[in-house]
C-alpha cells in the first residue's frame, strides 16, 4: 500500500484517497489534424511502461481533488519525487509547494 504525499494538502495519505491518472508529461499535439494516423495512435495508446523510475499523474480524489506529478519506482514502489502539475520533469528549482 502506497502512502502518497499530496503537494497541495501537504500530507501523506493512503493510496485509497488517490486515483492514478496515467503517464505524466504527455502533451496533446498542438495540431492533431497535421498528424498521421500512426502518430495520433501513438499519442493515444503507446506508453513508456517503465520498469524502474516512472513519471505519472495522480489525483487526490478524496481530498483536494487536484492533479499532481509523481516520480515513482515501479519495482520498489518507492516514491522519489512529488511535484505540481505544470512543472517540467527536469525542474530542480526546489520551489515546490
Amino acid at each position, binding site marked *: 500500500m502506497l502512502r502518497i504525499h499530496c503537494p497541495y494538502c501537504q500530507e501523506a495519505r493512503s493510496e485509497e484517497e488517490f486515483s492514478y491518472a496515467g503517464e505524466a508529461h504527455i502533451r496533446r499535439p498542438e495540431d492533431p489534424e497535421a498528424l498521421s494516423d500512426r502518430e495520433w495512435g501513438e499519442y*493515444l495508446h503507446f506508453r513508456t511502461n517503465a*520498469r524502474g523510475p516512472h513519471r505519472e499523474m495522480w489525483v487526490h480524489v478524496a481530498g483536494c481533488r487536484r492533479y499532481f506529478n509523481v516520480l515513482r519506482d515501479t519495482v520498489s514502489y518507492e516514491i522519489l519525487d512529488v511535484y505540481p502539475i505544470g512543472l517540467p520533469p527536469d525542474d530542480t528549482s526546489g520551489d515546490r509547494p
Partner: protein
Amino acid sequence: MERYSLPRLLAHARRHHEDWQRAWRSPTPKDAYDTVIVGGGGHGLATAYYLAKEHGVTDVAVIERGYLGGGNTGRNTTIVRSNYLRDAATRLYDFALDLWRDLSRELNFNVMFSARGVLNLGHTLQDMRDIERRVGANRLNGVDGEVLTTAEVERLVPLMNCSPKARYPVLGASWQPRGGVARHDAVAWGYARAADALGVDLLQQTEVLGMRVDGGAVTGVETSRGFIAARRVACVVAGNSGVLAAMAGLRLPIESRPLQALVSEPLKPCLDPVVMSGAVHCYISQSAKGDLVIGAGTDGYNGYGQRGSFPVLEDAVGAVCELFPAFSRVRMNRHWGGIVDLCPDACPIIGPTPVRGLYFNCGWGTGGFKSTPGSGYVFADTVANERPHPLAAPFGLDRFASGALVDEHGAAAVAH
C-alpha cells in the same frame, strides 16, 4: 521421449518409480537458432511446440529467465471460457477452447482440463441486459451459452447467497457449459515436454538482456549466457513486453500491473462450476485438490512488483464473503501477484513489429491462460509464414493506427 501410458506406469511401479526419464533436456545453448522464443510461459512453450509440430521448424530455443511456467502461467486462476462479445475475439478464444478439449491426448500429458461450466453473474438490470446481448452474440458465433435465472443459478451453486435481500442480489447469470478450469503447471510442462521431444531447446535460467538489430532487422539476443543469433525472435513475455520492446527501440500500447490471487486450505467438494462476478468483482472456483482459487483485480497503477496493493485484495475477499457467507471462515493458504500486460482494448497483440524478424505476442492481460493453445497455434503460424494467421489478423499492432480496436472491456472486465 518415453510415452506416458498405463502399461508404462505399471512397469515403472515394479521398479518403485525410480527410473522415470526426465521430462525434458537441459541443453547448453547453441550459438545460433533459426527462431528464438523469449519467455517460457504457456504461450511461449505452446508457440515452440506448434512451430515444431505444424511447421517443421525445430531449430528453436525457448529462453526463460526463471523456470518454465513461473510467470503468469503458474500464477493464474485457470479459468477457461470463450464467451467474449466481439466476433474476432470470440473466434480466437473459441478456437483455443476447442484445442483444450483434446489437449491432454495431444500432448500425452494430463492437463486436467475440466469443463465444469462458467457462470458470469448479473447483479443489476444493466448487467442482465449486457448478459443477454453477450449470450446472443455468442450463439450467433456458434458458441454455447445460456441466460440463467436466479433459481437456476442457485441450483448449480447451492452455497451461494441468492437471497433477494443480499446487498447486490444475484438476478441471473450467463452460463457457458464448455468452459472450465485446467491445471496451469501441467499446461506449461506438457507443452515443454512435447516441444523438447520435437527437438526444441528449452533454456531456463537464461535472461534476455538486449536485442541486436541491424539495418532494421533483428539478428539475435544478448543473454546472461552470451549472444544467441537468430533469424526470427518471438517475444512472449506478458508483463515484461514493454521491457523487451524497449531493447529493440520500440514502444507498445501496453501497461504492466500486478494482478492478485489467493488459495484456501483444501475443502471437501462444495463448488462445482466457476463463478465470476464483474459487479462485485471476484472470481472463484474449487480446484481438483479442493482449495478455493480466488482472483482479485488489477492494481490501479503500473507496477512490476509481483505483489499487489492490499485494498484490491480486500475488495475481492469482501465480495467472496458476500456471495458465499460460508466461506468467511475458510483459511487462506497462499497469496501472490503476477504482472499482467494490459492493452487499451483488453485484447491481445499478435504479430510482426516495425523491426523485421521481430514478433510480439502480448497484451493478454488478465485473461490469457484460456487462450494458451490457440495463442501458441496462431502465433507459430504467424512466425513460420511471416504473415498473420487469419484468426490473429485483427489483433496486429496496426490497429492502433487504423483505430480498429476490438473492445472487449465488457466481456473481459472481471480480471480472470
